[in-house]
């Protein structure tokens, strides 16, 4: 199905580890002691995403999803491996990559005293957009996302998390990225807000030339939105297939139809079982 489509994102053998301090240490005692231990956040991860595809990444907390998204978004430098976005290497052609991408994270991350209009206009100017056109686009996008006009001109801090997250999606969409990184965009939202955000992602997928990388904890969301899904556990990809393909790997479960949640528990829960057995 995807063979003739252009490669939007090529992640090749990417590894990222952090050195974390173990407790408080005086700076002069840090050398040659065991106070700092490396933690592997991403371990030799490889996959490709085709243009127009919605590619999902599922994984438990701390599995490396956000670290991977940050590496693609030029916010972290991988220790090893290569990330290429539409032919541009993330480490060598950072500015070219930045022009092609945008990101929505689990935290809305705005200047809280400023209004959505002020925050989004700031974002638009950073991407070299003209103010007058940007204002019109901001109003149109926020209207599409269900924000009332009066909400556009009141401080972000007075808004619910769901509304803030919609503004975050508008900020990313405003710059018309051809690779959109959605890092748990619906986590913590009420069902209605979650559904509205998911509908907007569906619209992006169906009507606009956007490739989407989506990380989520919501199995139904991944099942309904994603063309393919990778499951990340302890920094490694443990499975990668279409949602149907992943379900087929697990087979029937307790008499009910297999869901992505069954797949997730099967693939990421094994280790827990091993640890319990070892204990």
């Amino acid at each position, binding site marked *: 199905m995807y063979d003739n489509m252009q490669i939007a994102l090529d992640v090749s053998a990417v590894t990222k580890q952090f*050195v974390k301090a173990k407790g408080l240490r005086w700076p002069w005692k840090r050398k040659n002691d065991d106070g700092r231990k490396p933690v592997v956040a991403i371990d030799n991860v490889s996959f490709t995403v085709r243009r127009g595809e919605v590619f999902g990444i599922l994984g438990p907390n701390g599995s490396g999803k956000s670290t991977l998204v940050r590496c693609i978004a030029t916010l972290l430098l991988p220790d090893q491996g290569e990330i290429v976005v539409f032919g541009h290497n993330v480490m060598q052609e950072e*500015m070219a990559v930045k022009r092609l991408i945008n990101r929505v994270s689990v*935290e809305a*991350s705005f200047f809280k005293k400023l209004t959505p209009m002020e925050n989004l206009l700031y974002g638009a100017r950073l991407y070299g957009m003209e*103010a007058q056109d940007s204002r019109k686009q901001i109003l149109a996008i926020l209207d599409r996302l269900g924000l009332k006009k009066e909400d556009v001109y009141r401080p972000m801090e007075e808004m619910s998390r769901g509304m803030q997250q919609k503004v975050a999606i508008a900020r990313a969409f405003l710059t018309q990225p051809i690779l959109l990184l959605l890092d748990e965009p619906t986590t913590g939202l009420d069902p209605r807000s979650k559904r509205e955000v998911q509908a907007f992602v569906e619209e992006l997928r169906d009507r606009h030339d956007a490739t989407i990388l989506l990380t989520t904890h919501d199995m139904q969301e991944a099942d309904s939105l994603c063309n393919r899904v990778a499951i990340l556990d302890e920094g490694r990809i443990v499975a990668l297939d279409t949602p149907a393909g992943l379900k087929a790997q697990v087979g029937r479960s307790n008499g009910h139809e297999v869901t992505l949640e069954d797949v997730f528990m099967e693939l990421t829960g094994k280790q827990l079982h091993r640890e319990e057995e070892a204990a």
Partner: protein
Amino acid sequence: MAQLIREIRASYAFVERNFNLVRRYWGWELVWLAYSIASTLSITYIGAGMEAITGVQVDSNYLILYLLIGTMVWRFLAIVFDNISEMIAWERWEDTIEYTFMAPITRFTQMMGQTVFAVIYSLIFTAVILGVVALFFHLDLRNANLVGAAAMLLVGSLSFIGLGIVASVLPLLFPERGAQMTNVIQAVFLLISGVYYPIEVLPAWMQPLARLSPATFVLEGMRATILNGAPTASLWPYMWPLLVAGIVAVPIGLWVFRLGERYAKRTGKLKRNG
């Protein structure tokens, strides 16, 4: 040309955003302004009270103007320094740093925007303080060379912009204590630069350090123009060290910041958590 327009728009984004923030945090601005006015008046009244303190006849007007120049120039330079050096700390506090760093702009463009805002904001803030303080004292500026004083201030701010850029790397490298470290740098400059006293009163070992501070030259030049009416052409001995400091400090600041940014992206310090 299109690229230049993009960069100018991106620089303006920081100017507009910061003035919007000033507008929204107006209560804090008012508190800071009241504090600054009270602080400036307190220091300047030391000059007015010197005769009463010592019992010796002194030229109080000269002393008042001497201290006022010190406090106003320091206020101006410190605000420029603060606004540039704390830009990372602000973004961390608002949790917007990753979005700003993900935008397709150069650090030079970001610094330009932040610098333009810092100079305009500092000029307005200092002018308001001066306006209020002028109501309390009879300031005799008949002999002052105000054009020369303005030139000294602008050239001096160039070097403080460079120092601010260098210092702004500290909150990038040290998320928890970087902002406090910039205050230490500022305090050292306040001590050694002769803000409220001639540098000759400092211990002998400290005086060469005073000559390394751009603020020393700004203050000496400002006092020469306002207290003694020194013509602009005679300010060159004060100006060239400031120009050299500015020309050297700004590119070094950008270079240091680039190294700091790379280190933060390698070690995951761009964002404190997550």
